[in-house]
């Protein structure tokens, strides 16, 4: 497959594919020069990149994930700091601490909502005594 053909079949512009190769997300063609060729493996790889992007990962994160030992441990950042929130006796939520402020704020709202939802159901008798 030529670059134009793989671009056609993956739905990604040729410039984007060259950019991915330069970023280390995708291997270069199997041969050089005029006979440069791309294989089905390239197509599969491009599909995985798209999936990672859809899951919210940036290209640099994807490059790291794809170069990991199994290439499967996506969703996990390298060793870093995390906040631990014990929101109930039986629930702990972990949130990465060095995310960008918008993401942090978004997660804070989500955890807040989650915390409300998982509040343990209260004993009806307890409620009744409080009401009295």
């Amino acid at each position, binding site marked *: 497959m030529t670059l134009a053909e793989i671009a056609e079949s993956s739905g990604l512009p040729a410039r984007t594919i060259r950019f991915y190769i330069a970023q280390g997300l995708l291997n270069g063609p199997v041969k050089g020069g*005029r006979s440069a060729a791309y294989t089905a493996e390239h197509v599969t790889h491009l599909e995985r990149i798209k999936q990672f992007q859809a899951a919210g990962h940036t290209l*640099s994160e994807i490059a790291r994930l794809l170069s990991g030992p199994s290439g499967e441990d996506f969703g996990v950042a390298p060793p870093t700091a995390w906040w631990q929130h014990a929101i109930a006796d039986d629930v702990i939520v972990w949130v990465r*601490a*060095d995310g960008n402020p*918008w993401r942090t704020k978004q997660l804070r709202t989500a955890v807040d909502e989650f915390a*409300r939802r998982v509040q343990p159901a209260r004993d009806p008798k307890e409620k009744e005594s409080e009401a009295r």
Partner: protein
Amino acid sequence: MSVPESIFAPVAASTRSPVRLAMQRLWLTGQVMPVGGHLVVQHVFRSGEERPLEVIYSFPLPRDAALRAFRITGDGFEVHSELKQTEEAVKAYEQGIADGSLSALARQYGDGLVNLTVGNVRPAETVTVYLEILAGVESRDDGYRFRFPFTLAPAYHSKMRIAAPDAEGEIELPADEFGDLILPRFRQDASALHEVGFEVSLLNQSPASEIGSPSHSIKVQQNAAGPARVSLAQEKDVPNRDLILDLRYTESKVQVLAGPIGDGKRSFAALIPSTLFGRNTGSPRRIVMLLDRSGSMQGGPITQARKAIGACLATLTEEDWFGLVVFDNKVEAMHPALVPATREQRECARAFLKKVDACGGTELAAGVQQAARVLGGEGDILVITDGQVFGTEKILAEARGTGIRISCLGIGSASQDRFLSLLARETGGVSRFVTAKERVDVSAVDLFAAMGRPVASGLRANGSVQPELPRSVFAGTPVLLYGETESNSGDSVELTWDGGRLALDVPSGDRETGEVVRLLRGSRLITDWEIRYPSEEAVAPLEKRRQGRVAARLFELSKTYGLASREMSLVAVVKREADRPGELPKTLVVPVGMAEDTAFQAYFGAPACKPGMPVLPAAPLGASSLRMDNFLMAASPLQSRAPLTSLKTATYGVPYIKAGNTEKADNADLVDLAAMLEPDGGMPGDNAGVRAGRTIAAMLAFVAAGHTLTTGAFRLHLTRLVGFLKSVSATSEREACMIARAVDAASSGKVPPGRWLALAHEAGTGWKQIDSALK
């Protein structure tokens, strides 16, 4: 312009080792007129790679701008670009790359973002691209502000992906909205990036009284007859802020630029100062102030914006109605509907503003929707924002849909000028854009004074005038009129409005001026249509049909004016001997510097850490319903092998102090003074004598700072102070004389020397103290 290669030897600040830059230089040249600029931007690319290089440089278009052409030069070649339908241009570029030829493509995307891509630059080769751009300026009655982006500010999009690998910020936008646009990486330190600079000519019909720049050190050379030439004072600068040039006229008057454009036609552009339309009426106002409290507003901007709102509210009478809305990811209103501008409600607003801190994203569209609900009908919205958002077409469409006039005060050193000027224009309002180094509060007060009360409405013009004239004219902002006349149809264009008319003489002009004016008109029309483009994600058949109509109109405009748009792009392929087909170039994206007044952490959080390095967390969670007693930091529960890297607590947000934030004490004092006005227009005081005395002192303090009833940011405050003073019953001839002198000073601008500001602030200032100060 020739570029000596020897000057390119950038080194890393930390290691002093040479830095290999794909782009070494960006230099702006050209001419700027009161209606817009005809610019040429020189980009110098040099390959330090051992194989062919493909370089991508991203930049935002200035306001009302369009790309006209580029010329690509190098050792032994010079090729001019062709304007082709975007799909064809991309194909031509890709074919050039596949053939091993040097190829360049300038392609525009949503939000006026452009990717300039130059591929197959050979090892050690230097290639220069001269890109021709038409751009608008921010016109004011007394001059204009020209703004050109030397960097690209990071901005917010609800669907963006964001990270900070290698201490550089990375933003990726959704492909369904932005296609294959590639954004640069954002560097905290721009000192090791490409050099930037400029040398432009300023051409005016009205002589300039003042030329300055709040962004760069400039050198101005002016001959008696020729244009002023403005250049960077030092040899070079770094790409971390826009270039801003301000020009003030000695006299505010009508300016008409014109010239022949062939087929017996003349193209013209006219600027008519708002002062020629009359003065605004004192009818009650209905205004909602919408404040952006997103993370990028941290520091000076949010502090100044809070003060500005206090000063703006002081100009309202009890007959006026106002609302206050703040937004980041969430929107909060002081009250769900408008409230009268009473003393109590102004106090409520002050208390509400005290609690406002900058953090979070920029959901401007939601803010506008809420402000419209608070307004609940006719009126005006004043937005104070840095406008750092992507996906602006959707916001503009929603803002248009509200049918409410929106005026914008933009803040920032890197431009969202295009978006905010469009937001104001599309809704019939006015806009100003200041840097955080300038007085945001004074600009807000100035803009607020013009809002809600147009000086003229119902504008019409005879002849071929396009784009449409604005619905209303506001004090301080001139009307810009583009059109064409038949050379033999007379030399005059008639402009009429409700209650007035004006005949504009169109001069013969020269061919060059006529052509530039025609192109500026084209770039303005293209900009107006670009923002009507429904996003790719709009799949409904109706939207698809609309997209087709907009695309067809853009294509037609691009063809007519020879300007690029999203439908037509510029491409050039340089076929040379020794081109090697099939060789894959290495793709590099040119990084840019973070805007100098924007904290890196505001977008990208804490810098990425390496294992074993301490972490500075961006924010501890503080949600009220969370049990925070068991609050600690530890290794990832998802990755047990990850070591514990730090254990810290921190307060939210990194305090950010603007570098070089030059605060003028007199302006800050005036803003504080302005905020003290009572709803009846007078200064506060325990009795009538003190109120009158402090009011006179306040008036004279404003006049001493250069403000009068018709000019200056505090003109509305002066009007209100005069109104109050005229209502005061003088008990003696001496008191009547003091009132008359103060009222006269407000009109004439002449004020006797004195400690007026201090007297206005002193609680004991009465008739006696004023009398003594006036003697």
